[in-house]
């Protein structure tokens, strides 16, 4: 909020910048300085792995929320100024916010089922496929049993009756 006393200088600044031509605006993220492009990528990658705690299914890299910005600031400070590793930063946040801050569920005993589950399901699915297809092959080669033979003749009789009815 600007008080009256600042208006004039601001207007002047506005005119000045307009006169100077198109200028890129800056928001906190675009004004950050990193040691290297790799560090910048690391920063954004890490943010993508952390959940925005006050949003619906967004990561810290996507979200507009105030808390998300605060946490981004914190991650930046830890990474660029204090030189902490990703692990240390994540631990720092988990200590304060719990596992819920991890956007990607960790791979630990309580989540083995979650991560290995899909493989398990695929294996089961594959197994089912193999069993069903094999059973078909066997059916081809096995002669009919007595009960099956009787059923076949029964069906044949019924079918011809149905045809007549139609």
């Amino acid at each position, binding site marked *: 909020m600007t008080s009256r006393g600042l208006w004039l200088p601001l207007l002047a600044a506005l005119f000045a910048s*307009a006169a100077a031509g198109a200028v890129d605006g800056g928001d906190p993220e675009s004004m950050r300085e990193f040691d290297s492009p790799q560090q910048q990528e690391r920063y954004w990658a890490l943010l993508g792995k952390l959940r925005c705690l006050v949003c619906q299914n967004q990561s810290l890299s996507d979200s507009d929320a105030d808390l998300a910005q605060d946490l981004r600031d914190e991650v930046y400070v830890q990474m660029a100024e204090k030189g902490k590793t990703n692990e240390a930063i994540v631990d720092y946040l988990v200590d304060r916010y719990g596992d819920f801050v991890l956007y990607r569920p960790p791979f630990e005993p309580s989540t083995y089922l979650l991560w290995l589950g899909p493989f398990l399901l695929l294996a089961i699915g*594959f197994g089912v496929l193999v069993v*069903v297809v094999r059973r078909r092959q066997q059916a081809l080669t096995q002669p009919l049993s007595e009960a099956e033979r009787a059923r076949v003749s029964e069906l044949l009789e019924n079918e011809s009756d149905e045809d007549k009815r139609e």
Partner: protein
Amino acid sequence: MIPELGTVALALALCVALIQGAFPLAGAHKGIAPWMAVARPAAMAQFGFVALAFVILAYAFAVSDFSVAFVANNSNTALPIYYRLTAVWGGHEGSMLLWSFVLALWTLAVAVFSRTLPAEFAARVLGVMGLVSIGFLLFMLLTSNPFERLSPVPAQGTDLNPLLQDIGMIIHPPMLYMGYVGMAVAFGFAIAALLGGRLDPAWARWSRPWVTVAWMFLTAGVALGSWWAYYELGWGGWWFWDPVENASFMPWLVATALIHSLAVTEKRGLFKSWTVLLAITAFSLSLLGTFLVRSGVLTSVHAFATDPARGVYILTFLGVVVGGSLLLYALRGPSTLGGSTFSKVSRETLLLANNVLLMVAMATILLGTLYPLVIDAMGGGKLSVGPPYFNTVFVPIMSVLMLLLGVGNLARWKQDSLGRLWRHLRLALAGAVVIGGGGAIMLASDTFAAKTAMVALGLILAVWVLITSVQSLWTQLSTKRSVAAGLGRLPAGAYGMVLAHVGLAVTVVGITMTTAFNVEERLRMAPGDTKELAGYTFRFEGVDRVRGPNYDAATGTFKVSHDGQQVATLQPEKRNYMSGGKPMTEAGIDAGLTRDLYASLGQPQSGEEGAWSIRLYHKPFVRWIWLGALFMVGGGLVALSDRRYRVTRRRKAEAPAGEAPAPAEGA
């Protein structure tokens, strides 16, 4: 007075549903024809009463009758009429009424179009659907009556949640419900088959059109939800693996498997057991979705105001309906003895593999969606399972599926050989690798390897599906004399299949391109500032204050130019609704076939006058995601137009002339 009529109408509908549920089923069991004959008139009467209740609620909204609690909680006199009517399904009670209405509508459709079905079978189908109706009507009357009165009557209502004041709200829920609830028809057919002990290709032929139509609606509903989230939420996301999104996606996966399974059952009399199970599962997932959204068991942006008591009812209902049907399945499941056979390498095997993969995908999503609950139940605290998990596990499964899809497009029924398939597919494979891989390299050469690989995977798979799908038409043609004649003679089903598969390929291209090459800039802009993004220049003109019917908005204007030519004007908004709540963002989007230009307003910034925090996006091919879905729906429509389903009309047309009816086609 009138709202009470609404309650009466629902009560009457319930009575009719009781009759519709009890008599036809008992009649079919005992062979009592008059009891079975009750089904149709009962279905019509039930529709009449439920429709009446629906109209009464709509009327209450139209006249802003705030003595009705539901209207007071979801509407406002300042709300434009079209949103007032949409608000009918803007909250829990009204959406349950929509559920019942759509169910009654489907039941009516079955009643009207089932005259060619054997009386016993039709009676059973309608009876089962009647039983389902009982559950929902009872639920409404006991726990969620939309006609409950409010006293004292407020002068003004609370308003419809601003997020819902959008065209998406007008079409997405009805479409989705048509799909969700349409699975009840497939369910009815499956149960009727189990009860009657008759599961033959004729049953599959009857079921197919119904399942196809429901599937089409479900496809459209899911796609609409994604599109709506994209422009409504302001950051250009189009899928979040949110529990409620998953709740609509899982039935879709199973319904897709069901369509394919029905094809095999109809054509070769196989997979009967699978088909029945899939039909039961698809509807079960619809009911499960209803449960998840309303019970408070999981949090989600879509969740209605939660109430565990409602959750208990729905869970019990779910348990009874699904448990009962699975019990029936266990006891009466069709025997898989006998029947035709097929060799290890055949279209049947591939379709089976396809269905297995779809089911695995569904089960995986179910696992991820319910896992937080599992952890919490075991005292392990809160865990969040979100897009990183789902994307990681879903993509590989779908990739395998698409690979097999290509092979399945050309595989022969009953017996085929790897050698023959390889001969026919190797060109397609080469083409896919060259075009897809080449495209990926060209587009992603300046990014890191993993990204190029992902793009390559997506594009190769999509091109592979595309080539093999078109090729499948070609191979069917080559046995006819001339191309034109051949094309004309192909059954509509073949075209439908190709179109739907092409749709999948188109969607995958859209997903691949937009995920990999989406460009975002978050910055602060003052009027007059410009920003270069992906070759486009965005110029911020400033923000104006605008007044809408029930909101105040700040509207930003962006002029976008490319190569010096102006190509678009974007007008994102930040709205403050009179009824309070958080400010809503409306993105400014210039839609294009090959790219979307997207801008959204953040917050006003202190410092420069008129400065705002802005987000700018360039999203390549994002429209293809929903275009693909449109193709899929189109494919379903084309498949429906197949001659097979016109038999009844032909028969009716010919009968009056005294000729013998034409023999039934395809069996």
